[in-house]
């Protein structure tokens, strides 16, 4: 059971603790700065925070023994003179870190190993707690990368990294827009694994191409790792065969559009989503903020609204801003309009922690 969560926002990092039954903001860090993502590494106890300073670039900070320190951020290699490297829309890809969109630990036996997904589509790995980073060249150099496209961002974004709990050399990543990619040898070779996904917003000749899909977030069941869930730009998809194939979960009330998905740590059939009107408007349906939950692998969904604002709510929940704790009982999400909500009963009831936070990018439970 986790009594602590961290919320990354446009104006700082907020640590929220449960004390005497109430969730309260207990600490603030980087107040005024744009914190876009955090990671807590249970192997080392270190915390990581991504700061996107805009003018001054994207920086990475690490907290050991209570003190934050800036560490190296992933950097792209020198672009060879005259090289043409364009994305699927024909736009020049910058060889420069635009943002960090995913940060995950390696396997439990890989002490110090951190994976990092970026815009403009580079995947990086550190083997020393973020001291130094290497670009995963086999993925970056794969010519199919140049078919990837920006989705909600100017250039392709690696936003999801799932290290297989059965074998840490098996890693799957989600890319907007480049589908799902998998390595089975620790990053030396890669293949696209998005068969079955489709994008209704693309011309029919392109819509079923696995390599242009826009999964907004990819999550993997820790206890049944062949089960993966994707909240896709075009709806909800599920894989039961370790990403080899995907099937759409259709007709989810009130909408199957959204950004976030969380899977129960012990029940692979149970997953949560935060729906919105697709896809240009991006506001809750009828101004009612709800969470949807399936307990039967997507056959049916509960629409959970107890404790959530049910009139004139215009909150959007970004892809990293919905979290479930290790028990599967506690959930939290934070919104673009500064709301932070917590449930202690799998989403049946929600309580507001704050509705005056800065716009939120990400939420994580921390032990």
């Amino acid at each position, binding site marked *: 059971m986790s009594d602590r969560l961290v919320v990354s926002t446009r104006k700082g990092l907020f640590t929220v603790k449960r004390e005497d039954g109430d969730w309260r903001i207990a600490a603030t860090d980087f107040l005024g700065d744009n914190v876009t993502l955090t990671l807590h590494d249970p192997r080392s106890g270190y915390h990581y925070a991504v700061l996107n*300073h*805009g*003018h*001054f*670039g994207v*920086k990475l900070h690490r907290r050991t023994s209570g003190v934050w320190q*800036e560490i190296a*951020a992933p*950097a*792209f290699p*020198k*672009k060879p003179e005259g090289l043409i490297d364009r994305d699927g829309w024909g736009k020049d890809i*910058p*060889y*420069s*870190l635009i943002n960090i969109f995913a940060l995950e630990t390696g396997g439990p036996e890989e002490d110090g190993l951190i994976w990092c997904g970026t815009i403009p589509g580079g995947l990086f790995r550190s083997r020393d707690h973020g001291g130094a980073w290497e670009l995963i060249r086999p993925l970056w150099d794969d010519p199919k990368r140049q078919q990837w496209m920006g989705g909600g961002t100017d250039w392709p974004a690696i936003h999801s990294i799932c290290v297989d709990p059965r074998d840490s050399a098996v890693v799957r990543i989600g890319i907007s827009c480049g589908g799902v990619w998998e390595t089975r040898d620790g990053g030396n070779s890669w293949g696209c694994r998005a068969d079955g996904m489709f994008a209704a917003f693309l011309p029919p000749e392109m819509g079923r191409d696995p390599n242009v899909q826009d999964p907004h977030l990819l999550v993997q069941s820790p206890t049944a790792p062949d089960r993966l869930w994707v909240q896709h730009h075009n709806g909800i998809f599920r894989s039961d065969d370790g990403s080899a194939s995907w099937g759409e979960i259709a007709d989810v009330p009130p909408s199957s559009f959204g950004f976030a998905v969380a899977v129960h740590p012990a029940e692979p059939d149970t997953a949560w989503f935060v729906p919105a009107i697709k896809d240009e408007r991006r506001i809750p349906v009828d101004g009612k903020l709800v969470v949807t939950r399936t307990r039967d692998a997507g056959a049916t969904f509960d629409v959970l609204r107890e404790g959530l604002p049910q009139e004139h709510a215009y909150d959007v929940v970004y892809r990293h801003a919905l979290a479930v704790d290790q028990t599967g009982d506690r959930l939290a999400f934070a919104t673009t309009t500064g709301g932070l909500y917590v449930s202690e009963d799998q989403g049946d009831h929600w309580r507001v922690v704050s509705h005056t936070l800065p716009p939120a990018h990400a939420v994580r439970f921390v032990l």
Partner: protein
Amino acid sequence: MASVVFTGNLRRHVDCPPAQVQGATVREALEAVFRSNERLRGYVLDDQSALRRHMAVVVDGRPLRYCVHLSDPISAGSAIYVLQALSGG
């Protein structure tokens, strides 16, 4: 010696007091500063060592012309200001 002055907003993140350096171009002057302050480099230049998209440099009252190569010439008494461009919000 040319003088290099960094925006005060940058000093919130990295210690970067005004510096007196030698060099024939803006690149050389900035590199002279970065040699003793490596962390500052990534706040001003991108991964390709070009000026960050929303940064600006003013040399003797004139905005920098060559933001990739930073090859604008400077003289011994030049004043170089490293600022945030308004384009970045």
